[in-house]
């Protein structure tokens, strides 16, 4: 693979996550490798109260008081709680780097923002009046709330940013942090995504779009990307955060390096506000751009963590995009569709799945895809099914696409 010597190399030195599969990266990865489904029936009174057409989701545990003290949790929307918990994990995993606050950035994305806070506050306003609406409501509900909270928690003063691009947000945060380091705005960037939208209103809205699987009698098998009987995505929540550093900074402090972020590509479909462009034209441009910026060719790619949400249209559009971008080389790529286990973590998905791609390179092991019983004949790909698969040396791609027509592809390489 070729490289551009003038380009600042950016490496990954710390990982943190709270997901439906576990409260840490290690627990999540172990569950992922053993093919554990994260979706279950929701045990909340509102499922019955509203007669929701979808009664299950893949939920993450709220951080325990020893992870996030009660008084801190109280000032954060669940999306902010997940983000701060995951950011502290990632920071500890990176060895709590000593860095000038003016050279440390926080880029934490969300697709939806503090929707629990917003709707709970509206309920309070209606039932108890304006004086009972908590003064922290606005900082908790704003979509940049999690980015601000992480910047406060770690003392990141080089910039706090919150790219919002629906389900591409997490991937866009990685791309944004990468560019902050490459353009000299920071030496270290804490990047990722968070989401907490398992609430009856967003559930009802996504269901109204017919975007969600309605396999209520079998939540564990509902997320089935590329299966002929897939009928929509499964709501998930949680957060994934990683520590990026310039290679120079990381080497100087003797950090462990897990992977290199080689490059990212973004594009927009300009086709439909929610439906994917059926030929994957926009998505393919993002992947092609990511490979170009990374200085690698399609034949270098050994693994892709696909966006693959388990919707009838989206899964096939992504395959078409990958075929355009990688051509015949796609045949030799081990593809994993990990939303089959995590569900769709919306604005966190691109970050959590980037972590999976990094771990796949680090361990040379692609995680499995579960619940595929009858592969869609339109999916002419090498999907890793049922059990993990060893990977040859090479680079990995994570895709993240979002309503609004957003496409993000990020390319990771092994630590050199």
């Amino acid at each position, binding site marked *: 693979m070729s490289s551009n010597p003038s380009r600042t190399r950016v490496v990954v030195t710390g990982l943190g996550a709270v997901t439906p599969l576990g409260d840490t990266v290690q627990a999540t990865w172990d569950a992922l490798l053993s093919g554990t489904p994260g979706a279950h029936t929701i045990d909340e009174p509102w499922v019955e109260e509203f007669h929701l057409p979808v009664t299950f989701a893949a939920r993450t545990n709220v951080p325990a008081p020893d992870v996030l003290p009660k*008084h801190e949790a109280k000032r954060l929307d669940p999306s902010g709680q997940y983000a701060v918990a995951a950011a502290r994990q990632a920071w500890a995993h990176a060895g709590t780097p000593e860095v000038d606050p003016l050279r440390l950035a926080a880029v934490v994305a969300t697709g939806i923002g503090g929707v629990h806070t917003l709707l709970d506050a509206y309920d309070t306003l209606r039932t108890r009046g304006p004086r009972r609406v*908590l003064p922290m409501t606005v900082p908790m509900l704003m979509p940049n709330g999690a980015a601000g909270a992480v910047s406060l928690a770690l003392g990141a003063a080089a910039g706090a940013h919150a790219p919002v691009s629906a389900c591409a947000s997490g991937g866009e945060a990685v791309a944004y942090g990468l560019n902050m380091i490459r353009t000299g705005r920071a030496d270290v960037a804490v990047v990722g995504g968070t989401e907490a939208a398992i609430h009856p209103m967003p559930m009802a809205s996504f269901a109204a779009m017919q975007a969600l699987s309605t396999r209520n009698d079998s939540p564990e098998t509902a997320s089935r990307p590329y299966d002929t009987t897939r009928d929509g995505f499964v709501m998930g929540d949680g957060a994934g955060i990683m520590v990026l550093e310039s290679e120079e900074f990381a080497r100087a402090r003797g950090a462990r390096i897990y992977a290199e972020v080689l490059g990212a590509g973004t594009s927009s479909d300009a086709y439909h506000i929610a439906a994917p462009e059926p030929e994957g034209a926009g998505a393919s441009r993002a992947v092609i751009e990511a490979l170009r910026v990374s200085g690698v060719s399609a034949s270098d790619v050994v693994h892709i963590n696909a966006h693959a949400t388990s919707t009838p249209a989206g899964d096939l559009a992504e395959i078409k995009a990958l075929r355009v971008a990688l051509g015949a080389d796609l045949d030799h790529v081990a593809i994993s569709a990990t939303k089959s286990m995590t569900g769709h973590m919306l604005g966190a998905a691109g970050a959590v799945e980037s972590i999976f791609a990094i771990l796949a390179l680090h361990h040379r092991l692609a995680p499995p895809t579960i619940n595929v019983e009858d592969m869609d004949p339109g999916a002419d790909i090498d999907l890793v099914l049922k059990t993990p698969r060893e990977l040859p040396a090479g680079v990995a791609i994570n895709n993240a696409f979002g309503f609004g027509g957003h496409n993000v592809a990020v390319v990771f390489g092994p630590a050199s």
Partner: protein
Amino acid sequence: MAQSEQEILAGVAELVNEETGLPVESVEMDKSFTDDLDIDSLSMTSIVVQAEDKFSVTIPDEDTKNLKTVRDVVTYIQQAQG
């Protein structure tokens, strides 16, 4: 029902602890909320609103700005209950 100064102090300390994580024993009568306890105006508003529920009193916004110390709050609640 009127409560003793000590009971009100303990209740206020509990609210401060829940809001800020400060230990209850640090909430002493002569401490200033802003200067000694480093409590910002958002947290202060939240503590006052919760105190209204906890002690069954009403503390109008125009009075809140005069509540500088823990003693101010405890005395205000005691008088409002009385």
